């Protein structure tokens, strides 16, 4: 199998996911082209990216010099054609079938046939998105878990017609990001979403039934199974609207009752209490997204 070298990576979409990926790629010493739709957007993305890096400097994870080097390797463009020089392109635009479909059809025209195109998705079907393209065999899926910067695992998803060459390049790309690729075939929710959603849903049911408070449920699971966060705080941190979407999607795709969204989650989403980002979900958060209402027992373990 030919080992195509990866020197330059295209990232389409400058949201949180796109910025994290661009940062990691540049940190690994590769060139990055970030494409967003307007000049205002790319300027904004540039600013946000610098702010992300400043936050990491405050956490002692990065130095000013490294920040400069990271930014120097990232170019910004509004022209999709500029990704034509990339060895691999990953899209990170919003989770919408029509939008993603239109984008990859355009990429299919712009890129050489052997350049892998990675669709960032947790719910959409890779095979369906690739249908009817000129080169559907280079299309594959990837699912990054929240929070993208620190989570070590990435699901690499093979569609019906994805070829081994593209799949191997994608796996190498994940290793360059310093993460561990899990190889999977296409299936609703892949592995991680499918396994974790019933846990969150069940935790919400336990709270709704009044068996225990949200804080007690989370602390029990966190300490009991050595999780970094309990399932409800985790759901708050990804966003309850996202959790609700995933559950609905899985319920719709499989018809399994275990995925039927708990009414409490729906209730919070309808009230706009979608989690850490807005300051309120199952728990309360300050503007830095630090949780405010911890139980006295919920402290760092020092011995």
């Amino acid at each position, binding site marked *: 199998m030919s080992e195509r070298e990866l*020197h330059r990576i295209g990232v389409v979409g400058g949201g949180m996911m796109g910025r994290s990926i661009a940062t990691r790629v540049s940190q690994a*010493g*590769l*060139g990055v082209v970030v494409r967003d739709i307007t000049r205002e957007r790319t300027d904004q993305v540039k600013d946000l990216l610098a702010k992300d890096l400043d936050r990491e400097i405050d*956490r*002692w*994870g*990065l*130095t000013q010099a*490294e920040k400069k080097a990271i930014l120097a*390797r990232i170019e910004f463009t509004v022209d999709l054609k500029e990704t034509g020089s990339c060895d691999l392109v990953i899209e990170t635009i919003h989770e919408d079938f029509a939008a993603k479909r239109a984008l990859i059809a355009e990429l299919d025209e712009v890129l050489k046939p052997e350049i892998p195109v990675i669709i960032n998705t947790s719910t959409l079907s890779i095979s369906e998105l690739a249908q009817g393209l000129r080169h559907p065999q280079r299309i594959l899926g990837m699912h990054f878990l929240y929070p993208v910067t*620190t989570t070590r695992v990435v699901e690499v998803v093979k569609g019906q017609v994805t070829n081994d060459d593209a799949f191997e390049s994608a796996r190498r790309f994940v290793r360059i990001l310093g993460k561990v690729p899990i190889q999977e075939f296409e299936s609703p929710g892949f592995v991680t979403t499918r396994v974790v959603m019933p846990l969150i849903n069940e935790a919400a049911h336990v709270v709704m039934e009044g068996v225990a408070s949200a804080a007690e449920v989370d602390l029990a699971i966190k300490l009991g199974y050595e999780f970094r966060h309990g399932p409800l705080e985790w759901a708050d941190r990804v966003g309850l609207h996202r959790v609700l979407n995933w559950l609905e999607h899985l319920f719709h795709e499989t018809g399994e009752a275990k995925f039927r969204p708990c009414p409490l989650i729906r209730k919070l989403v309808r009230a706009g209490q979608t989690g850490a980002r807005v300051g309120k979900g199952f728990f309360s958060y300050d503007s830095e997204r630090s949780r405010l209402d911890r139980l006295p027992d919920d402290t*760092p*373990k*020092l011995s």
Partner: protein
Amino acid sequence: MKVLVLNCGSSSVKFQVIETSLEMIEADTDRTLARGGVEKIGLSDSRLSMDVPGRKPYQEIAEILEHRAAVERVLKVLSHPDHGVLANVAEIEAVGHRMVHGGEKFASSVLVTPEVEAMIEECVVLAPLHNPHNLRGLAAARSLLPNVPHVAVFDTAFHQSMPPKAFVYGLPYELYTRHAIRRYGFHGTSHRFVSIRTAKLLGKPLEDLRIVTCHLGNGCSMAAVDRGQSVDTTMGFTPLEGLLMGTRSGDLDAAILPWVMAMEELTLSQLNAMLNKHSGLYGISGVSSDMREIEAACAAGNRRALLAFEIFCYRIRKYTGAYAAAMGGLDAVTFTGGIGENSPLVRAAALSDMEFLGIQLDEGANRTAPRGKEALISSSRSRTAVAVIPTNEERVIARDTVRVLGGVMPSFSVPGNEAPR
């Protein structure tokens, strides 16, 4: 003999061409024909620069994507009819490579063979940030210059003479036998070079001297060189331990680390970066990692800069006393490295009021020690000599290359000095 010296980092290659021979080493007349480097390897605007004594500096910008291409480029420039210093590449008779970590496998510089390369490969786990790049440079140079001998010179080799009581940590012994966790020490080529030069400067045999060598640069370390052999050094399993450095913490209570990780919810990589890049002079002063800027800030009355300066010098002082005790006496203290060679303030603060160890600085000589030259800065009444010796690691590497090829390279390991397995 013309020796090419290579030092390959993650995105850089530094090089020198040095003319040397066993006779020239003896007479100290070997000379650098060209020095330079390639920076930003992997980018489209990599920079190659070269200095040739007596000429205008040369520079070119080009896309250089990996180490092999960088070394190829270096060879091309060195043999270029206008900018070069060689009529052709065949004038290079040997290549000396700087290797960061030789583990317990290398107690001297060695001729590179496929077996040696495999052994260096096994040391990668000990220096994951350095050895892979060193090896990449080695592989590139070997494929581009297949007909000349290549010699590997290790940062750790000189300290292989340390006795187990100096290199074994107070941890469960299995960590040593299983993972080779022990003190290795670094800057070995520099400590060795300046201890030899100190003996020459004093006109005494190295075998009669107990010398404390202080390599104070970006990284800082001290060594106790007892009659020519390193018997202890401040850096440990990694270059983090010991003295305060520009951005590294040096010694600290290891129990702080799990505590800080829990309190600040840090990841391993954040913790590592904190210790290596956000600590030391920079972390304490908040001003700079550069001693010149720290000194300027001290002069301007910045109290945290002053504290950083004091901590820096205090640790040197503390280890000087410790190493004098370790060797049962002290004949000389030698300063080298960017700070050691150029900061009279640091030298004075580190060694003032040390007459109980026979140290008496000549304040004038310390202040006016000429840049880039060897100098004695202790007073004529000082029992213990204090010297400033400019280090030159590339020259040591070139010299070792010649010595290895001439069959006169001593091993630094001491028979019977191994820890039980």
